[in-house]
Every structure is written in C-alpha cells, then in structure tokens.
C-alpha cells in the first residue's frame, strides 16, 4: 500500500513538473500573442495610410486637376467663343445703328401720300379709305353712293340687275373697309416691330430667344391678317366672275327671247 502511494506521489510530481513547463509555455505564449497582433495591426494601419495617400494623390488629385482644367476651358469657351462680351456689345450696336439708319428712311416712305383724286367727292372718298382709321368706315357708304350712284330704283331696272348692282357695290365697299382695317393693323404691326427692335437692342443672349418668340407670334398675327385680306380679294374676284357670268346668262336668255320673237314675226307676216 505504501509502495503504491509512493509511486502515485512520484508520478503526480512528475506530471506536475511537466504541466508546470506547459503552463510556463502557455503564459509566455499568451504574453507574446497580443504583441504579435499589435505588430500586425500597425502593419495594416501603415498599409491603409499608404493606400489613402496614394488615392488622394492619384485618382482624386488627378481627377480634380482635370476637372479644374475642363471647367476653366468651358468658362473660357463660353466667355470668349460663344458669348464674348465684345461681340454682344457689337451686335447691340449693330441693331442700334440699323435702327438709326433705316427708321428715318422708312418713315419717310411710309409718310408719302398716294392720294391722286382731283375732284371733291373722289378726294373725299379717297381720303377716307386711305385714312387707316376704322372709325371712319361709316362714311364710306354715303360718299361711295354719291360717286357711284345708288342702286337703280325698282322701276328703272330688272330685279336681277338691281341685285347685281347691289352685291357689286357691297363687295366693293366691304373690301374698301377691310383695306382700312388692314391699314390700321399694319400700322400697329409696325409699332410692334419697332418695339421688338428696341427690345433686341437691349436684349441679352439669353433673353433674345424670348424676343424672337415674340416676333414669331407677331408674324403669325400678320399672316392671319394677310389671309383676311386675301379672303376679301377672293370675295371680290368671285363676285366679279359671278357678275360676268350672270350677264352672260341674261344675254343668252335675251338672245333666245329675241330669236323667238323674230320667228314669231316671220311666221305671222
């Protein structure tokens, strides 16, 4: 029993001695592990700092430098090629000079009076229908009737002929009135054109498109008014054609009647 106990204690001491060595190894390893990790962390940190500086110097720095160059180039292009201040001023001066040069000449031409009548009534009528005052339109029928005479009385002409006279007179007077309105609106359009030119004189490159759009709208108005004048002319021409045709019809019927009467006379001598 004693021997077994002694053997056990000896083994225990031997194992303890071996474990103690292991314990020392474990403790030293534990002490060394954090030191290795920290060294590894420092290495990573240095690598990271290197990556950051390289990125800042390379891709970011280069890109920003390029952007600066492009920006400067775009700015220069805009200020020196597309919208150079000198050329903007030059264009405005050109508009101003053109306006100064032509406005007077055109006003003189516009101011020329084309009235040519010599007798009192024609002079009066001409004066009214060239007045470009739509307010004077009411005077047209009375003066027109005095010059061209009223429609024949019912006893003096056939109803068909009286109708022809009346529609011819009506279309003629309508067109004269339309021409008066057209003259008046033409003057308004000239005023608008003048405003547009004045606006162009002070416009900026960016606002010029707005002035152009405005001019286009005014152009559309003019086209519409021109169409109305064409419509008046069409009415007049159509009336003239219809008048000639009506006369032909009347002559044809009259000829036929005459032929019938002659035959009647010849058959009953």
């Amino acid at each position, binding site marked *: 029993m004693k021997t077994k106990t002694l053997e056990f*204690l000896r083994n225990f001491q031997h194992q303890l001695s071996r474990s103690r060595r292991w314990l020392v190894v474990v*403790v030293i390893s534990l002490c060394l592990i954090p030191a290795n990790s920290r060294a590894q*962390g*420092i290495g990573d*940190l*240095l690598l990271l*700092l290197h990556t950051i*500086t390289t990125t800042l*110097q390379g891709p*970011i*720095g280069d890109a*920003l430098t390029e952007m*600066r160059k492009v*920006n400067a180039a775009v*700015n220069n292009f*805009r200020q020196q090629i597309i919208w150079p201040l000198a050329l903007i001023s030059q264009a405005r001066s050109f508009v101003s000079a053109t306006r100064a040069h032509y406005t007077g000449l055109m006003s003189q031409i516009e101011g020329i009076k084309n009235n040519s009548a010599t007798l009192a009534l024609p002079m009066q009528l001409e004066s009214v229908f060239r007045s470009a005052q*739509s307010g004077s339109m009411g005077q*047209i029928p009375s003066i027109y009737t005095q010059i061209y005479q009223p*429609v024949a009385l019912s006893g003096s002409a056939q109803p068909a002929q009286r*109708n022809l006279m009346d*529609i011819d007179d*009506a*279309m003629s007077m*309508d067109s004269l009135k339309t021409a008066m*309105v057209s003259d008046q*609106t033409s003057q*308004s*359009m000239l005023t608008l054109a003048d*405003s547009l030119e004045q*606006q162009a004189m002070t416009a900026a490159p960016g606002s010029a*498109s*707005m002035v*152009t*759009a405005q001019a*286009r*709208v*005014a152009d*559309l108005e003019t*086209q*519409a*008014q021109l*169409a*109305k004048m*064409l*419509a008046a*002319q*069409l*009415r007049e*021409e*159509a*009336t003239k*054609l219809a*008048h000639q*045709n*009506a006369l*032909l*019809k009347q002559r*044809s*019927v009259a000829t*036929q009647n005459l032929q019938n009467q002659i035959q009647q006379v010849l058959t009953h001598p």
Partner: protein
Amino acid sequence: MKTTTRSRLWKVLRNAAAVACGLVVVITLLPSKARSQLGLDPCCAMMQIGLNTISGLLRNSVASPLGSIQQSQQQSATFEQQVVFPLAAINQARNMAVQFEGQFVQMRQLFQLPIGSATLPMPQMLEQSLLSGNPGAMPQITSNYYSLYGTVMAPANAPQQVRNLVDMTDAEAQAAMKKAVEIDALANLELQAAEQINQQLQTTAPGTSTILEAETAAWLVRANAYTQSAMAELVRVRSIELANSSGQLKFSASHTATLQSTGNQVLQQGVQ
C-alpha cells in the same frame, strides 16, 4: 516517511506559488491603453505622421483644385447671371409680351367690325354668308348664290358650249367665295392661337421660349400653307375669267363666220 512526503508537498506548493507570482508580474507588465493614449507608443507616432501626410494632401491635392473649381464655377455663374441671362432683360421681354397682348386683342376686334354694305334682301343674305367666317354656312352660299345670280340656262335657251362655260364659271365663283369663308375662319383661329402663345410668353423662361418659338413657327408654316391655298384659288378665279374671255371670242368668231355664210347665201339667192 512523513517528513519526505511533507517535503515534496511543500516543494510542489512553492513551485505553484512561484508560477502564480510570475503570472502576476507578467500581467502587470502587459501594455495598458493609457500608454498608447499618451502618444508614447510608436504606433501612435506613425499614425500621427500618416494623418499629417493625409491632411497635407487634402489641403494641396484636393482642397486647392476644389477651391479653384469653385472659383471658376462662381465666375461662370456670375457671367451667366449678369451677361447671358440677366433677370432684368428676361423680365423686360416678358413685359413686352404683356404689352403686345392688348395690341393683338385690339387688332382682332378691328377685324370683327361689321363691314356689311348690301341694301337689298338677296345681296344681303349672300353677303352675310360670305362675311360670316363660318364654314358651316357653305350650303347657304350655294343657295344664296343661285338666288342672286341665277342658275345655268335651260338647254333650250343656250347652246351646250355656252351652258358649259356658264356652269364652270359659276362653280369657280362659288368655290372662291367658299374659300374666302374658310380662309376667314382659319385666320380667326390663327389670331386666337397667336394670342394664346403670347399669353404663354408672358410667363416663359429663356430656356422654354424656344419651345414656344417652335410652336409659333409651326403655326406660321400652317398659315403660309393656307395663304398659298388662297392664292391658288385666286389664280383659278383669274384663269377662269381669262378662259371666259377666250371662249367668248371664239363664240363671236364662230357667230361672225355663220353670219357671213348666211349673208352670202342670201345675197346669192337674190342675184339668181
């Protein structure tokens, strides 16, 4: 025996105590956080150098170009705001559209003034249809036209050639009258469109005014096309008028030849 056992036990306990003490010393000697925070750690020194380098790079390689870009952008913005798109010029252009509106309305009203001048019932009816600017009034034009100018002569009253000529002339005269009504109606629509576009221009921006300009240009093309169609109608009216003159000359020549022939026959019979 007991003494030996005690001695060995004591040795074991002593070794264990030594190991424990060594462990305590090692743990005490381990680096603490406080040391690295004080900048004594070489790791912190390296980090400081690295961060200083980054800061310098941010200042020189990033901030400097960015500042330059900002300055350039600012200059560009100022140029655009003061030279290219000055607000005063933009507002001035908008105000012009407001002023034009009144003028456009006035002009449209002028063209709506009554200009009818006929005095007899039938001419009045035709004139009313012609000046109506209403394309729906086309059938009335036909009936009013025939009431006023008469229909084509009956076959017994005129040769077929003359009847053809008369019918052709009536057709063209009526077509021209109808075209005049159409053109009037289209012109009214154009005037309305112009006023509406002008209203849009009062609130437009320089960037969007080109869209309105394009819209107006489209309307102008349309207006020109309508004007062209009216001109074509006018040309047709005059062509028919010219053709009528020629036709009448031909009829006259034919009649003269017939008369001459008949006269010769009569004279020959008288001689015999």
